[in-house]
């Protein structure tokens, strides 16, 4: 594929930052650790378990990408699974990018409508955010990476400040009895949170863009671990402040928590921090997803310059975001287990397992024949 005029590179720090922000944004929006499944006060434990599993999944994805450092997942899926199945998997992965971008943007638009501006129609917020993401994808992954790097400290600071502001209202009793209900309820909350880790598939597309000395598996795995730790903390604080019932029944618990506390006499209203953080993270994630999706489609359709696909892909994302979900109920219902986790397991888990199997088989065959052939 012909590269753009300046070879687009990004640093591993930028990639890790993007992954971290992407995951943290979606999960602090509606906190599936609490709102799906029945972990209740043990949501933090569910978060830790989901984090562990996600770190493993990140290693699976990034490890395979590292074995083929100059190829994207579209390329080596066709190589490893054959033309037909490879194309099927590639299409599935492109659809993943579409799904993630559209769903994230739709959640954000719902938040805007429900919490801040009730009369602003969904299509407006959706199209505005899709436009921004597409514009960023048009510029390329380099500006996205740099902008994400510029936003990362603010993102972290705002989330941390919101948690700090809610901390005085924290009541440890809400988290007790800890782990008393057994592992079953905890695991029921793990799956959705884990499945949202689908975002790590973007590593497969972006790995070739890293500078050669940066192409390590470590950063993707680290991003998974750190973001999951953050989520576990967020879940713990949420339950501690709001209580299990209120937090699991809220549509956007993080926002609810920010709205329900009054940190000091002068600084009374802190929900704007969380919302701005969310917007920044959504931009980083959405732009990356549109970029990855455009490149994936360009590779599948053998179009030389992926930039040309960006407007079309953006339009698809906007349409999907507006019409795939009728309303907020359907949106939230989409994520409920077992539907969503099963879907992701089938469309992403199985392909990756097959690809790894194929890769290991090739490796063994090569080694075996290599030894024999001498």
């Amino acid at each position: 594929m012909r590269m753009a005029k300046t070879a687009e590179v990004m640093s591993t720090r930028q990639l890790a930052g993007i992954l971290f922000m992407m995951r943290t944004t979606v999960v602090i929006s509606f906190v599936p650790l609490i709102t799906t499944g029945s972990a209740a006060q043990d949501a933090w434990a569910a978060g830790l378990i989901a984090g562990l599993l996600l770190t493993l999944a990140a290693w699976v994805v990034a490890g395979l990408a590292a074995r083929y450092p100059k190829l994207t997942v579209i390329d080596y899926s066709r190589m490893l699974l054959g033309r037909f199945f490879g194309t099927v998997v590639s299409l599935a992965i492109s659809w993943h990018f579409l799904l993630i971008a559209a769903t994230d943007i739709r959640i954000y638009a719902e938040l805007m409508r429900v919490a801040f501006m009730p009369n602003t129609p969904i299509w407006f917020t959706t199209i505005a955010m899709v436009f921004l993401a597409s514009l960023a994808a048009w510029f390329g992954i380099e500006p996205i990476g740099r902008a994400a790097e510029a936003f990362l400290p603010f993102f972290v600071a705002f989330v941390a400040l919101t948690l700090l502001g809610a901390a005085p209202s924290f009541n440890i009793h809400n988290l007790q009895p800890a782990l008393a209900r057994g592992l079953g309820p905890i695991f029921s909350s793990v799956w959705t949170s884990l499945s949202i880790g689908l975002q790590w598939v973007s590593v497969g597309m972006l790995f070739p863009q890293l500078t050669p000395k940066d192409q390590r598996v470590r950063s993707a795995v680290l991003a998974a671990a750190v973001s999951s730790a953050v989520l576990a903390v967020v879940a713990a604080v949420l339950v501690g402040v709001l209580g299990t019932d209120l937090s699991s029944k809220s549509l956007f618990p993080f926002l609810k928590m920010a709205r329900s506390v009054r940190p000091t006499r002068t600084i009374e209203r802190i929900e704007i921090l969380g919302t701005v953080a969310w917007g920044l993270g959504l931009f980083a994630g959405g732009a990356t997803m549109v970029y990855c999706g455009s490149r994936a489609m360009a590779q599948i359709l053998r179009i030389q310059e992926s930039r040309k696909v960006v407007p079309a892909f953006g339009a698809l994302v906007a349409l999907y975001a507006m019409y795939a979900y009728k309303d907020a109920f359907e949106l939230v219902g989409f994520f409920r287990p077992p539907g969503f986790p099963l879907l992701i397991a089938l469309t992403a888990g199985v392909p990756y397992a097959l690809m790894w199997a194929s890769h290991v088989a090739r490796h063994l065959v090569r080694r075996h024949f290599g030894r024999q052939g001498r």
Partner: protein
Amino acid sequence: MRLIAALAALFMAFSAAGCWDRKEPDDMVFAVALGFDMDEDGDYVAIAQFANPMAAKSGVGPTSQPAGSAPFWTNCAKGRTPFDALSNLSPALSREMTVSNIEVLLISERLARRGIAPIMDLVARDNELRLAVSAAVVDGSLESLLGSQLPEDPIPALAIQRMLNPIHFIDPSAMSPGLLQSIADMLRPGQDLLMPVLRLNAGAGSESGTDSTSPGSPVTHMGSAAFHRDKMIGWLDGHESRGANFARSRSQHAPISVQSPAGGLVSIHITHVESTITPRCVDGDVSMLIRAKVEGHVQAQTGLDQGQAGVNLADAESLQHLRSRLAQCVREDIEHALARSKQYKSDFVGLGNAIYRRLPQVWRAGVGERWYELLPDVPVQVEVEAALTSSGLLRESLHY
């Protein structure tokens, strides 16, 4: 070039789109306090206190000021549901009402006894109302309370909010930092809500805006209301409320007067209370142990006339005496509160919650479902440990 055109188009769309959610501050009237009552027909009554910023800027006006320049005014309306009642306030207003800035949410006794769950649902669901407002039950006429002027602030809602949220609280989860605490208390298994109470003083039912000529504030923050699930069951007076706070470690600065070994009374200012509730289950019988640690310092004495020396804190025996008296007083307060709790079948101390947290399998085994029946018979043992940190700025009492 096309990019610019697209951007320009978007830009114009932004500005021309009509800005759906635009709310010019001039087009709004701000409700600063909200009260809910219920009338005889079972309809909800919403009473809102609106701020008049123009007049509020110039401070409290004298009685001779013409109407319309009072810093606040109230309005009330009826409806079948709380939201209905709230919406029915609008027809009487010349501007759009917004409740996003209310400071306090008041509930009348009548409505509290009928059940506050619908109100809580409204507050948790609405996107303008926040759970950070302070809430209280009103003993007296809700309308006149919302209509009366408090001396500290031209807009009474702000004064009431400060009253419910005193600066000086030690434990952050004090009496009523906000509705969040109240809802969390209600929803916690094995715990009931205890809401602060605002009492309207007799003779303070003045119309909105006019200066109250009677001395003092028309409103007092004293006592609490105990709830059984979401319905109010009864009142707790000052001592019982204090005892409940001791038991829940949510005490503020509490003064207690104890008998002095040297005659008279000694006032001790309790600064720190920490208590733990430990449940025990022996052969299916549940019993509780409440252990409280209390810390305070001596603030004042009586009985110093006729050359009495007063209590001498350097003397170990008097110190011990005082401590045990203090512990005795605290224990009595807690036990009074527990007696009320059992009487009302309202577990505001959180005994059930302690079982839920510490002995979850016991709770699940059936105690949880039958808790309200078991509550009156649960033996509770109260142990108090008191400490005196200092005697103020005087080492010894002065001789007269």
